[in-house]
């Protein structure tokens, strides 16, 4: 995964194994699911599976957002507080402003894109290291959320249907036995879209190219700064979606929430096999990483493991899961 080394010597071999490789990436996840099912009869129930999926939605969307940034070789610490800020703006528009629902959603996504763009300007134009630029943004947005709301949550009681965005279940209406929450549906749609952008479009191509060798891309005559800003803006817009999801889930914009969520999202990305040094990564991996995280937390809770032991076991399993993945890749390489 280091930019230079550990690359399989032969490109063909690389590709032939890739389908099989992706299947194997599920391995850690499946081992976990099977393990918890054996350990507790309450784990593999429909309602608990739905709870796990619901718990994955917000972190998953954030992880998808930050995957984009990480593939460019950057990092974004502001995703958590940006999510909150977008939720707050939705609250301002809907509850305080009394505007119709679509406008609120648009405001949240637009705010996300704008803030992402600003981070992008810091990073691309002003050449501030992404860590610092987004650390600054994290603090600024955290403060702004508190300032705008006056440190009190904004509730969405005045907006009928707001909670169904994440909590309702379109699928459940069709297949009552399988009431997948809309939040999860949205996660999958967002993930599919971003995977498509990454895999098929120019923006995606430049995302990988920037992470691989930014100078080479610049020397090829590409407007690297512009594209980078676009990527940050897109990522910000996705954080806006995460903001809508969490607001809908909590029926409120909680201004103090958000910090710490970036770490979890980044962890999901890295567990999913995306390299922090940029240039490689997949959305599928990120989804699996996010699922591993929520299966782990939920499973340990359902097993009624003491919280301090939950922490220890989570840490150990994350290491083991990534190590197993590492071994697999090495043997596949």
């Amino acid at each position: 995964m280091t930019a230079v080394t550990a690359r399989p010597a032969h490109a063909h071999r690389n590709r032939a194994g890739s389908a099989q490789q992706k299947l194997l990436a599920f391995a850690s996840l499946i081992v976990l699911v099977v393990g918890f099912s054996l350990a507790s009869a309450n784990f593999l129930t429909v309602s608990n599976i739905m709870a796990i999926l619901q718990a994955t939605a917000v972190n998953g969307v954030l992880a998808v957002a930050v995957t984009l940034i990480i593939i460019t070789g950057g990092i974004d610490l502001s995703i958590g507080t940006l999510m909150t800020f977008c939720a707050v703006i939705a609250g301002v528009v809907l509850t305080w402003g009394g505007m119709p629902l679509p406008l609120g959603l648009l405001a949240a996504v637009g705010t996300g894109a704008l803030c992402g763009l600003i981070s992008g300007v810091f990073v691309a134009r002003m050449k501030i290291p992404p860590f610092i630029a987004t650390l600054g943004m994290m603090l600024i947005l955290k403060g702004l959320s508190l300032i705008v709301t006056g440190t009190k949550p904004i509730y969405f009681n005045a907006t009928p249907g707001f909670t169904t965005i994440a909590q309702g279940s379109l699928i459940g209406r069709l297949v009552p036995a399988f009431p997948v929450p809309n939040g999860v549906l949205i996660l999958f749609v967002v993930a599919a879209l971003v995977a498509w952008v990454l895999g098929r479009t120019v923006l995606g191509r430049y995302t990988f190219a920037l992470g691989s060798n930014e100078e080479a891309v610049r020397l090829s005559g590409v407007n690297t700064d512009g594209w980078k800003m676009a990527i940050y803006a897109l990522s910000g817009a996705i954080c806006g979606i995460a903001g809508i999801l969490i607001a809908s889930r909590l029926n409120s914009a909680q201004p103090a929430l958000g910090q710490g969520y970036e770490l979890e999202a980044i962890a999901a990305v890295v567990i999913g096999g995306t390299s922090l040094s940029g240039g490689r990564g997949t959305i599928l991996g990120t989804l699996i990483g996010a699922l591993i995280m929520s299966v782990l937390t939920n499973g340990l809770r359902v097993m009624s493991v003491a919280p301090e032991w939950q922490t220890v076991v989570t840490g150990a399993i994350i290491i083991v899961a990534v190590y197993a993945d590492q071994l697999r890749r090495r043997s596949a390489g």
Partner: protein
Amino acid sequence: MSDLVRMEGIDKRFPGVHALRGVNFDLRAGEVHALMGENGAGKSTLMKILSGVYQPSGGRILVDGAEATLPGPKAAQDLGICIIHQELALMRDLTAAQNIWIGREPRLSLGRIDEARLNADAAAIFADMRSAIDPRAEVGTLSIARQQMVEIAKALSYRSRVLIMDEPTAALTDAEIGELFAIIRKLRAEGVGIVYISHKMDEIKRIADRITVMRDGACVGTVDAADTPMSTIISMMVGREIADETVSIPDLSAAPIALEVRGLTRGRAVRDVSFQLRRGEILGFAGLMGAGRTETARAIFGAEPAESGEIAVGGRSATIRSPADAVAAGIGYLSEDRKHYGLALGLDVRDNIALASLPRFTDAMGHVRDGRLGQIARDFIARLGIRTLGERQEVRLLSGGNQQKVVIAKWLLRDCDILIFDEPTRGIDIGAKSEIYQLLGDLAAAGKAIIVISSELPELLRLSHRIAVMCEGRLTGILPGGASQEHIMALATQREGVSVQ
């Protein structure tokens, strides 16, 4: 004939370095204009200015007679100027085709990339070049030679009017060079102006129409290639004559065996390779691109340990699982890819030279004797003629050839009994080259055992006491020094079906 490009009085200063001093240069349509000079003379810098990478500190650039400003690579591209950089500028995580078309992807609706066309177009260019590179291969997995082919393909894809090639053949073997020259001739016939930088004299003779020689950041002169003898050009470059020596092969039958390799195998790249190397011997390795020479060397060195086979050093069997094992056993390996495997570009010249030998310059407290190291670094700078502001200059700021010399210095300082040099003179100027040949000869005479892998047959013939030839991962034969090129080529193309097993 009107000038396509005219550079007048170009000046370029870097902090502390006056890299170009009022250089004049012109390029006509339909000519190959060779740019020559010692390492650090300023060739790459001049061409980076022409391609919009650097901004000149003074002077002006005329394109088609009109003054042009080139604030960035894109501006140069828009004027039809394209460059193949000396230091490969590739995105290692992308495929060959994706690299070639970066920034100019064929698009469908919605910003989608027409991947099929992208690959087909790349395949067409490779086919033109008669190169077997898979457009879908990830560039980071390709050998340095193939990466260079990708760079060339990328430059060709621009169909530009001015094509600058900064040492495009440094890592190529004769076969690919032949193909490249065929392409260059075709482009020349189409009226493209080509700037060609190389340290390989024979190439210049074969391809150049005019030659401009640079020295110390200034222009020495421009001459017609056809009616100027090489010796004149060389003395213009280095200010002296270079003696054209030939190898004298010592009798080593009594010398002890330094390294013995038996049945070394690693995947398809290295297949059952066996040979012996005596002390005092220089064993050359010849082969076509991808023949497996680099892979063999890396397997011996433990960079990617072999799957099977034995290695004996000084008559005793050695277990080599990592480069650390190899170095401990007295084996050193200079990689063909200095940027990725040879240098810590962010560190300075002194620390890079010291990288393999630090424990020797450390006291019991772990304290590094920097004074001593600095002294040694300055010695090497003088001895190899490394053009640098000093031993504390960051290596990434050195010219390509000078970087190569730093890697050589690193291994000379390590003082291994067995030295494997993979393309040691890649990008090194003719004067320094002959000094390095001299140096390798001296090392051998002092009892070192040396393996030289080179894609330049003249170099191998000039250096080697014996020449091993590889093809498709197998060692197809070992010839005595001074063997004929035909003989070597025959072994180098001895494919499996043909060879008698």
